[in-house]
């Protein structure tokens, strides 16, 4: 199996000494050409750190990040990154934002060819009417489309999407998910999608990999999504296979970390012998005392102990 991106025992920590925080530990990942992989995890689990490692914006503390067997040392247009906050240049309009990338990546092309290329990707994300607009004049969804078009126009060998839909409202989100699915089916690019939305991951990806809760997060077992494409959100919600997959991912994410041991301490609490007054009852001067009932309840308390 020829893999495009490989992570071997990658760990990443920030800071030194007692300020040291381990973000990622022992990450092993293999991504094949043309695959759509979703990495699903909690907010703050280190998802952005993981994608930054793959993009080359960060260097691993230990282990190796490889692209076709060569170590990744710096960012490269062949691994286009779409950020959660769009990262569009606000002083440039839609066309100029994309053409900056295209001019940089394809300096040898003729102007005409570049123009056609940019036009094609703007049309692909349905932004033709907004070509002259600046990012501040666009909605969040439209901005993310521009960012997507810019990344795709760079013709990367792998597209890295870092919670691209995280800042969008639910309706725009659903729309853009469909759009991403359509664009992927047209391009068949390798995609790594980082998300905190399990449904989104399953809807879009060939493979969903859960990332455990940090600090020291690591990847769980990859879960193959064999649902037929194109996947329809409405029918999918009632699909048994989909439900099962979702359950598996959620179960893994909810399950306590393997390195943690939990103990349950049973303890009985006797709650005070007080009942709140019944305000609906007709008021009498003596009611407060005579109607009270003794409550005794058993409460369990669970305690997590890290060993």
């Amino acid at each position, binding site marked *: 199996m020829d893999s495009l991106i490989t992570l071997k025992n990658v760990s990443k920590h920030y800071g030194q000494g007692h300020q040291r925080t381990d973000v990622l530990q022992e990450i092993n990942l293999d991504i094949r050409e043309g695959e759509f992989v979703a990495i699903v995890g909690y907010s703050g689990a280190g998802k952005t750190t993981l994608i930054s490692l793959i993009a080359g914006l960060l260097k691993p503390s230990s282990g190796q990040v490889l692209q076709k067997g060569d170590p990744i040392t710096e960012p490269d247009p062949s691994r286009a990154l779409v950020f959660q906050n769009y990262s569009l240049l606000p002083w440039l309009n839609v066309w100029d934002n994309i053409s900056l*990338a295209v001019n940089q990546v394809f300096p040898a092309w003729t102007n005409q060819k570049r123009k056609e290329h940019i036009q094609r990707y703007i049309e692909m994300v349905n932004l033709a009417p907004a070509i002259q607009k600046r990012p501040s004049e666009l909605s969040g969804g439209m901005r993310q489309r521009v960012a997507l078009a810019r990344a795709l126009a760079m013709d990367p060998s792998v597209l890295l999407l870092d919670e691209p839909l995280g800042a969008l409202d639910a309706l725009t989100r659903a729309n853009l998910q469909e759009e991403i699915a359509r664009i992927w089916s047209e391009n068949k690019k390798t995609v790594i999608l980082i998300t905190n939305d399990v449904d989104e991951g399953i809807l879009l990806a060939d493979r969903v990999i859960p990332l455990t809760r940090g600090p020291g997060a690591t990847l769980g077992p990859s879960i193959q999504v064999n649902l037929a494409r194109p996947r329809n959100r409405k029918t999918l919600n009632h699909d048994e296979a989909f439900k099962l997959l979702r359950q598996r991912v959620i179960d893994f994410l909810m399950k306590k970390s393997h390195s943690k041991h939990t103990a349950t301490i049973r303890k009985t609490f006797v709650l005070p012998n007080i009942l709140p007054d019944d305000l609906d009852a007709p008021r009498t001067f003596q009611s407060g005392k005579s109607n009270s009932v003794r409550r005794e309840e058993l409460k369990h308390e669970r305690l997590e102990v890290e060993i």
Partner: protein
Amino acid sequence: MKDEAFYRWIIFLKKIRFGWLAPFFLLLKGESPRDQLKAIFHGVALPLISVLVFFWLWDLTSRQIVTKFGTVPGPKQVWSAWKGLGNEKRLENIKEKEHAHRVRQKRLKSMDRYASVLEDFPGEIESGLTSPAVEAAMNQATELFERANELMQIYNRVSVAASLDEAKSTAEGLQFAESKELAGNIIAKVVPMEIAYRNHEEAYRADPKWNTLPGDTDAESNAKMDLNRSESRILAAEKVALLIERQKMTTQSTLKAFSLISSLPKGMRDHLASSDRAAATMYVPLKQWYEKVLAEEATGGAKYKNKVKLKMLLKAFENKVYTGKDTYVSQIYTSLTTVFFGFIIASVIAIPLGLLCGLNEGINNAMNPIIQIFKPVSPLAWLPIVMIVVGAVYVSDDPMFEISFLNSAITVALCSLWPTLVNTALGVSTTNKDYLNVALVLKLGWFKKITKIIIPAAMPLIFTGLRLSLGVGWMVLIAAEMLAQNPGLGKFVWDMFQNGSSETLSMIMVAVFTIGIIGFMLDTIMLSLQEFVSFE
């Protein structure tokens, strides 16, 4: 899409800081009149009321205070002082016209009285052709003419020559090295033509249009063309020489004509008297003549009998430009040029330096103490240093700038440097991480990263700095002009203060309002510029 154009206009108004006009337009359009009236009340009426209240309070309190120059002037006195300054400008214009009239009368009088000397004007002075450029042109033309003549002679000899050998020997017989080369060229070009001529001798006689003659080879026609060209060059050179000759004669004859000045038509006389340029054309030859007369006298030659007359005539044609005192408008103009000059010096230094500081933390740390120490220094402390240094360094017989102008401008630059420097450095160093990530992923080079990402991202802050700098510069300028005696508003205030007349206070208050209004306008202009470069 008329509506769209209308709203674009409204947005534009707001951008150029004329947003207070917008509710009037919207009201005309009938858009929610209540809101518009409220906006007009807030944007126009309230400021107007507060200004009126200020004037009223000023009028009320000013009369109470008595100084050594009389009572403190109220708005009315200041207004009349302002009008007085307007009259001053008109007065200066009248004075200038009067001056011109006087000069004209004097020249006419001198011409009537002394023009008879011009009959003695020596013919050898080739006046009007004395500038180096004209001399160079003349020399070149003469050289060309000589060469052309030479060429002509060679051509004539060659064309007359009956045989090839004769033509060659004629050319070779020439003595000069340059001519030899020329002759060689001519021979090389003329010889094929000669052969052709001979071969087609009969045809030539039959048909003078030998250019279109059949049987000409390329070489032959080229030779003919060359010959034609050299002929035309000779003609051109002759023309130039002729022109020069004619010009020499014209100058002489003009001066001769002037000797009969009393008989000149009135229009010509008037022109000669009132136009400074016309007077200058007279002045140059007269001056040469006068100097020649003086030189002859010095070497023991004969004294010229009409020397005094000549001197008087010469004096009448001297260039007499009116140098009146500075008007208020010209003082405002001087102040504005000074502040802009200083501001440009400051920007040229501060923006690149700020860029460096923002890009490199090390440079920033190194520069920081210098910036922090010099930033709070008052212009009054800088000025003496600037005056001494400029006075020592900028020594020139024909200075491009007045020293006092340079002193003020450099002081302005020193004080207005810092806001731009600090803001540029801040803007560059706080470039959004996301934009830098874009540069990283795209692998933009160093230069592209700065021009395409960092500078545009820092633009709003750079402009904030520039706006602050211009404000500081304008404020500093008045103090600098006061002390450096640069003829601007600051000097005006100082002069008025020294004057000590009953109008002193009113005049200074006019200056205060002028300074304030101009400062406000500069700030408005910079704000609207900032509006156009910002991208939020």
